[in-house]
Every structure is written in C-alpha cells, then in structure tokens.
C-alpha cells in the first residue's frame, strides 16, 4: 500500500475551518463560470483556482501572505473534471488548503480526483439527467404542449438536478476534505446513473414516436383519425418515418459510435434539399 495515502494522510483532519457565508456564496457563483477559461493545456485548472480563491483569502497572512499565493498557484494548475462535480473538488481542496495539509498530498489528491469526478459527472449528467430532461420536454411536446410549457418543463427539471448537484458537491467536498472518496462511493450515487438510464429508455420509447407524430402533423396538431395503430400514429407517412428512423437508427447503433448521427443527418438532408430543389 502507498506509505502515506492522502485520504488518511499524515496530517489528521481537523474540525471544519470557519468560512463565512459570503465566501461560500462567492465560491458557488464562481462555480457557474468554472469553465470560462477552458483550454487544452490547463483545462479547467485556472477555474479551480478562481473558485477556491475566496476561501484561500482566510489563510494565515491573508491575500498578501505567502500561504495564499502558494495555495492559489497550486490550485490553478492543470485539472479536469465534470464542471458540476468540480464543486466537490473545489470544496475538498479549499478545506485541505485551509487545514494546512502537506502540498504533496494535496497535489496527488488533486491529480487522482480528475478522472473519477469526470466519469461520474459524465454518466450522471451528460448521459443521464440531461437526456432524461430533454426527453421529458420532448414528451410534453409530443403530447401537444405549447412552447412555454415545454421550455419551462425542461429548464425546471434539468436545473433542479443541476443546481442541486453543485450545492451538494460543494457541501460534501467541504465537509469531507481529503476523505471525500468515501462520501462519493455512496450506493445511491453509484446506482443513480443506472436508474436514470432506465427512466431515459422508458421516456425515449414514449417521447420519440409522439414527437415524430406531432412534427408530421404540423401546426395545428391533427387529431388521430381512428383507433388502429397506423392511423393512431397519424397515417402512412408517420409509420414510414418511424420505420425509417428504426432502420437508420439500427445502422448508427451497429457503427458503435464511429459515425456521429449529426453528420449522417447533414448528408441526408443535403441530398433531400438538392433533390427537392432541382427536380
């Protein structure tokens, strides 16, 4: 085993350092812009420095002190993670700095946090909560909702998760410091993406055919003609469109992600435009 694992490091975790509500609010607001200087060299490294900075001002000597400048330099180096879960890193690193943990431990911990926070965030948000919220909005659209309802549905549902995750991340990071791994290993967090994915599949099955049907019906929405499956979908064209979608979708799945769908869409629509305009 590693001689001095940072999570149970040589410098024991002390009681929670004091951080004013003003500093906490500043950190949270800055987290909303954690990626604004994103680049391929430091990724969101300066963003972490930017977000931890209000907490670092309370280090001995204040903003003019050596401790402040050394900590800010350390926190502004290369870092990458999911932007929402960067809140966990910001909370944990700010606490580690205020506790005076050894710089070598902080740097090793910082490096080890990148990948897992990125992976968890990508699964939980980009591959989970975002498609869930988008499909919910598409379902509302497919059921005939107006623009305001669809937009509000999406924004409220998505941002309940988004803002909640940032607040939770900052709190759990601050409370746990370098011991944050244990808090993040909670079963709910590990199984959460899987549960959301199941909901995404149910929503995809419901929302996509209804959205296709509504786009085809045009404005205003035509009511279904009868109770047979094909007619219920709105006629032959929607049934053909859904079959076409299934066929093309199967091809895209078989390509194992090696062809991006939007590129295929661009090519097919270009062909459609040329055909329709020139014929």
């Amino acid at each position: 085993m590693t001689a001095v694992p940072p999570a149970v490091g040589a410098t024991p975790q002390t009681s929670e350092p004091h951080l004013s509500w003003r500093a906490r609010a500043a950190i949270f607001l800055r987290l909303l812009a954690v990626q604004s200087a994103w680049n391929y060299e430091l990724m969101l490294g300066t963003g972490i420095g930017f977000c931890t900075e209000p907490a670092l001002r309370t280090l001995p000597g204040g903003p003019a002190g050596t401790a402040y400048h050394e900590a800010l330099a350390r926190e502004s180096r290369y870092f990458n993670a999911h932007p929402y879960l960067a809140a966990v890193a910001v909370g944990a690193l700010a606490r580690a700095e205020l506790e005076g943990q050894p710089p070598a431990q902080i740097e090793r911990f910082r490096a080890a946090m990148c990948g897992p926070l990125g992976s968890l965030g990508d699964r939980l948000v980009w591959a989970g909560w975002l498609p869930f919220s988008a499909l919910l909005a598409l379902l509302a659209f497919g059921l005939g909702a107006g623009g305001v309802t669809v937009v509000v549905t999406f924004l409220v549902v998505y941002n309940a998760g988004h803002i909640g995750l940032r607040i939770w991340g900052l709190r759990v990071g601050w409370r746990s410091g370098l011991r944050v791994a244990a808090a993040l290993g909670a079963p709910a967090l590990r199984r959460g993406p899987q549960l959301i994915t199941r909901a995404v599949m149910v929503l995809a099955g419901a929302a996509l055919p209804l959205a296709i049907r509504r786009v085809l019906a045009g404005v205003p929405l035509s009511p279904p003609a009868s109770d047979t499956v094909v007619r219920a979908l709105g006629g032959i064209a929607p049934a053909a469109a859904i079959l076409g979608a299934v066929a093309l979708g199967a091809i895209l799945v078989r390509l194992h992600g090696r062809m991006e769908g939007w590129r295929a869409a661009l090519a097919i629509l270009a062909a459609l435009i040329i055909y329709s305009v020139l014929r």
Partner: protein
Amino acid sequence: MMDLPLLPLVALGAFLGIDVVSFPQAMISRPIVAATLGGAVVGDVVSGLFAGAVLEMMAMETLPVGASRYPEWGTASVVGGALAAVPGADRSGALVLAVFAAIATGWAGGWSMYLLRRVNGVWARRALPALESGAPRTVIGLQARGLAADIVRAALVTLFALLVWLPVTTWLLPHWSLGATASRAVLVAVAGAVAGSAAWRLASGVGGAPWYFLAGIAAALATVVLP
C-alpha cells in the same frame, strides 16, 4: 422575408452560446429551449418550438465528454428557430432548411469553440509565470477574458450564420418541390434515428433496456389509441 430582428437574435445567440460551456451551463442553450426562443424573437414561438424539437432529437447523441469536439447547439438552435419562424415561407421546406442550416451552424460553432480553446491556451501559456506565483489578478483575468471572448465568439457565429443562411433559404424556398408530409417524414425519420440510436447506446450494459423502451412505446400508443 429579410426583415429579421438581427440585433436581438445576435444578443440571444451570444447569451445562449456562452451557456454551452462558459456560464452558467444551465442548458438554456439546448435546442428545445434555444430554438423556441429564437422563434419567439422572430414572432412565431410554435415554428421555433418545432425546429427545437427536431434539433433536440439530433442533439441527443452529443455527449460533451472530456475534451472532445462536438457541435455547438446554442447559437445553432437560435439560428434554426429563427429561420423556421421566418414568415411567408412554405412551412415544410422552411423546417427542413432551418434544421439543415442549424446543424451546419452547429458544426461551425464547434470549430469556433475549438479555436477559442486554443486562444485561451495561448493566454494561459503566456500567464504561466504569473500563475506559478499565485497572482489572483491573473487567475481572475484569465477567467474574465475567456468569458468575454466566448460572448464575442457566440455573437459572431450567430451573426454570420444568419447573414449566410437567411438569403440561402430565402432563395431555395420558392424552388422547394417536395410535399409537406414527405419532407417532414424524411426529416423526423433522420432525427428520430439519431435520438433512438443515442438512447440505445446510453442504455448499453443496463439490464432489460429494450423492455423499458418497449414499455415507453406502449405508453405512447396508449395515449393516442385510448379515448
């Protein structure tokens, strides 16, 4: 046709363009929101909403994981929603052309984000000595400069896309010969395929995923078949 409220659209594009990565990532840049707002600025929320729904299906597969390059849907959807809402056009042709223009804009917007990241990198490299000395002004300055540059980037992408695509679609629409139903059928088939395959890939490794999908289809059928 050419009487679009250009300034409000560019302002909207700038605001939604920075939401994609820089601030606040509340996903107001998602097509279902951005295109609807683009349509609303032009005066036709519903047409914007329709373009947004189709583009949202296309955007389902875009996972902004790691440092990968992907279409920038914020400005693209504002442009798509606005073009779909332009008054006086054949609706089916307008929707296809608007979606096509939006995807192409998303592609260009993705490139502009890549260039911005490179510019941010140049600024960060130049600032490395100051960063290593822990200068707060440098850290805050890099964040502020990146945000400002992203606003300019998004505004320019929106402006150029509208200046290019508005005359192109205006010229193409009178020549559109396909019927409304056929045009839309191809459009939604492609969008549905992209969204469906994206959902399928997301469910990889999740037990019983096809059954959950089928349960959703059954629910959808029930809503239209049952009185």
